[in-house]
């Protein structure tokens, strides 16, 4: 990945994480409440970017792209899908980093990054 792609990746990952945190909080209070069109619009924008970055190889589900606002997705539906996307983003990141002297870097660059989540969890 180029430096520009890495920068974009981190931005989208951060946005998706933020949406996930927001939706999870909503889902805890009112899991079946429909999400308003304003939120769906911006979540879909983030998902579109995720789909571009992940491509068919890393995409969580081949028959899901974006939320259809007419289907009235609930907060729990959205939280669940965003969680899936976050896992796939993390998989792609883990597959594109290397370790050197105990620090992790994006492959082909000197840009530092965090250790893979799966290793972090084991600790």
């Amino acid at each position: 990945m180029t430096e520009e792609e890495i920068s974009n990746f981190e931005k989208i990952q951060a946005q998706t994480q933020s949406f996930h945190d927001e939706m999870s909080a909503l889902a805890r209070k009112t899991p079946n409440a429909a999400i308003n069109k304003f939120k769906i619009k911006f979540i879909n924008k983030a998902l579109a970017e995720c789909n571009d970055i992940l491509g068919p190889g890393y995409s969580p589900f081949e028959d899901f792209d974006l939320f259809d606002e007419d289907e009235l997705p609930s907060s729990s539906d959205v939280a669940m899908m965003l969680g899936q996307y976050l896992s796939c983003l993390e998989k792609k990141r883990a597959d594109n980093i290397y370790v050197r002297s105990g620090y992790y870097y994006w492959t082909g660059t000197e840009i530092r990054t965090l250790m893979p989540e799966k290793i972090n969890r084991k600790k």
Partner: protein
Amino acid sequence: MAIVRPRLNDFYNIPLKQEDIDFALPFLDEDIPLYVDPFLLWKIPSQQDNGLHLAVVSAFNAIGNQFIKGKEQEAIQTLIDLTECDEAGLGNSKTRTGKKLGVKASEEILELFKKIPQIKNNGFEHFEEVQLLIQGISKDRISDITCSLIKSFLVDYTLEKCDKYKFPFEKCSVPIFNIQTLKIILEETYLPVNPNTQKPIILVPKRWLRYNPWLNYEDYFDNYYIKDHQKTFGNRLNRVQLLDFNRHNYDMVNAYTRQKVANQQSCVNDPLFTQIPILSAKRKSETIVGLPTGKDQNADRKYEDNMVSVLASMLYPYLDFAQEQSRTESGLHIRDIIFYNNRSYDFLTEIYDKYEATQLVIELKNVKTLERDHLNQLNRYLSDQFGRFGILFTRNAAPKNIYDNTINLWSAHRKCILILDDSDLVMMADMYENKQRDPIDIIKRKYIQFTRDCPS
């Protein structure tokens, strides 16, 4: 295709949401049950409205002055002609026609200008006080007199709205009050007309309309006379006695008016439709969901009554409520709700275009399991009018064979019958409460699912 409770815009196929326009959409066959309150013309902070109020009161006082100066017959006849304004279509008539006041009652009103010194010297400031002084004068007369006195303005207002919303208009003769001659003269002008009766129609601003005028007899009696003065003046007076008492003690009426003027902040127009509060909608939905199916203990009646109230509110403002109605078919009582399809939503435009649904009918079925007969009842009803789109609201999800029947109906006759149940009602109530989405989106979702299941 016959329209239930047609309004002017329905006849001319002009999709308008009542909420989005500043005038009351007139019915073609009946009056709107609201009245112009001249107090609102006085209270609203608008130079135009205040000027119109001044014109109304000045004209009324000028007629009284005419009566004092000996032109009694002329004054009486003018007042009689002012007491009915069919063009405005406000009141409680089921035919948009009313009766003018009689000679005796008109004379009694004008006699006030002779008998009550304050009115003789200064005239009325709020002529609605007549309701507290003369028997048989109520909100409808006050409204009609006001409309008649400012009819020239209302004609111009109507033409402006016709131009904006593309209502067709025709040349017609309308009686207009002339302030200079204090006479009613027939003027030729252009107005929309009732397509059935060819009678002219004038439009009235919503901001002037109330169910009761701010100054009215019942309020005077319950909240002023009974509370503050009955004890002072002795025995309880009946209406006629109280009106007579008021004529001899005009200061009481004046004091009541001053009190109402001091509390004018609470005087607002009444909307043509009021949604029920969120809490009330939630409670009604819970009541509905808790009802047994069938007819035991009047469960079907309770279901229908609550559903009418809840759906009319939840689907507003996208769907304007037209009417609830009952019919009997093969000995069965069927209750349904009719809405105007004002095409205010993308899916409503689609069902208007595809299924000629000028009005939406929702049939209510308090049954445990939907059967083919229920579907057929609505299907036959749709054949007579309403286009080819209808909704069945029932208690439980439709069995697969019934749902398949709706698909077959579409395949054979291009009719769309959607089936909604308690779970959809609960979701609509939640949406009505949390305001994140509109309850009508539930119907739209059902429609999209239906169209996806239809064969291409």
